């Protein structure tokens, strides 16, 4: 029998770029190298380890290859999806705001609010988009943007880190 696990989440804002950058241990522009899911010790929950290859570090000093642990995933006949958690695809280019769980393992800040997908239509500059579906945000500001040029997002994170 195939099963999946879904979670919905409520997150406290604000979740503007500056607030996220301030609370994150690390912010990186990176690409997804690989993913693997496994049952957590004790069972009941599945977690996925997403391995990122850093393109550029914007805050902190993470290694060139970063392991990010996210709730949810699929193992055998069971699938666990976490609604509101950042989703990663193989080869995806991302900007992620991270907190450190262990010396070599990070988590994504505030679920999906801490991840931007990077991409661009042909011939246009890269943009960074955030998907906040699946999240309820208490205290998020109405003017929090989810769509930046990659250059603008980078400048705002670096500017925030300098302050």
């Amino acid at each position, binding site marked *: 029998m195939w099963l999946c696990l879904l979670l919905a989440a409520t997150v406290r804002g604000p979740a503007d770029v500056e607030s996220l950058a301030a609370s994150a241990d690390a912010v990186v522009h990176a690409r997804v190298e690989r993913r693997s899911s496994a049952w957590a010790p004790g*069972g*009941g929950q599945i977690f996925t380890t997403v391995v990122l290859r850093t393109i550029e570090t914007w805050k902190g000093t993470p290694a060139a290859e970063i392991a990010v642990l996210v709730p949810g995933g699929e193992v055998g006949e069971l699938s666990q999806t976490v609604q509101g958690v950042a989703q990663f695809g193989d080869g995806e280019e991302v900007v992620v705001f991270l907190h450190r769980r*262990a010396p070599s393992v990070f988590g994504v*800040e505030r*679920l999906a609010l801490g991840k931007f997908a990077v991409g661009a239509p042909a011939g246009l500059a890269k943009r960074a988009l955030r998907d906040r579906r699946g999240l*309820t945000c208490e205290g998020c500001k109405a003017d929090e943007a989810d*769509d930046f040029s990659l250059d603008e997002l980078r400048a705002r994170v670096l500017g925030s880190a300098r302050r």
Partner: protein
Amino acid sequence: MRHVAWVLLFCALPAQAYKRTTNSAGLCIWWRWPEARSHTFQIDAQGTPDAPAAETYDAIRKSFQTWAAVPCTDLVLTEEPLSTNPADRLIGYFQPGTNHNLVLFRTRACRDPAVVPAGDPCRTQGGCGNLYDCWDDAHGSGVIATTTTTTNRLTGEILDSDIELNDSPPAAGTKFTFTTVNGLPCTTPGETGCVRIDVQNTVTHEAGHSLGLDHTDDPRATMYASAPSGQTSKRILGTDDIGGICTIYPRGAQTVTCIQATPSGGCGCSPGQSGPGSVLATLAALLQIARRSRTRPQTAISASKNPASKALRVQGTRS
């Protein structure tokens, strides 16, 4: 003509309409009950230190009963006895085992090395929450609550659903303070008798997820994805929420699933697909009652791919 009417009902309203949660196979999720629509939930007796236990239990009960009180559905939400065994404070789905639809508060932070040893494998593999009865920071800081719903991937049938609230000390800043009072939002840190994170407001929303509803674009709805601190309005369902719950579980009619595709391939419940609007919710329920089939265990509608809806989301548009 009847088919055309359904197409119009489900597809013609692009915004401010409920959405159903889908699983990783793209199927909308739904509960199946052996007999009547008698869904059970269970409250963990530890409650929250922020509010009196009895008031907390009452707020959670009201959250579920709000959904059951909708006239156009025949959901019955029954409370199991309070869970008093600390060993039962488990989130997720366990096979074999007895699974309860649990609501619990986590009051310790897994991040704290006094709670979870620094070298414990759960720090790198996950699962600290269940192992050490703590709020797992895999969710990141600032997460107030999560709902865990287990479904059959091939049918969308929900098997278990748990709600977990973060009552643990944060790495920085102030702890979330849950309240159960009626009143105005708090405006100062030490203020009492006012609303901070309202238990009923939060759990009513999470209960909607546990029943199969996703976030809606309608800001008046309980299932709207944003809530300012001190909000209590989500305690009361909006017409959009009612439209959603009654379409999935219409009174006297079969539960609407997404198991089988219809020949038209038009309407369904894939992510981002809009359902009937609030004005049409009652009409939809009545239509379903009128056309219900007593020979099929569930009514299946197809999963759809709505490129227009997806395009909006990719562009990051939101209310």
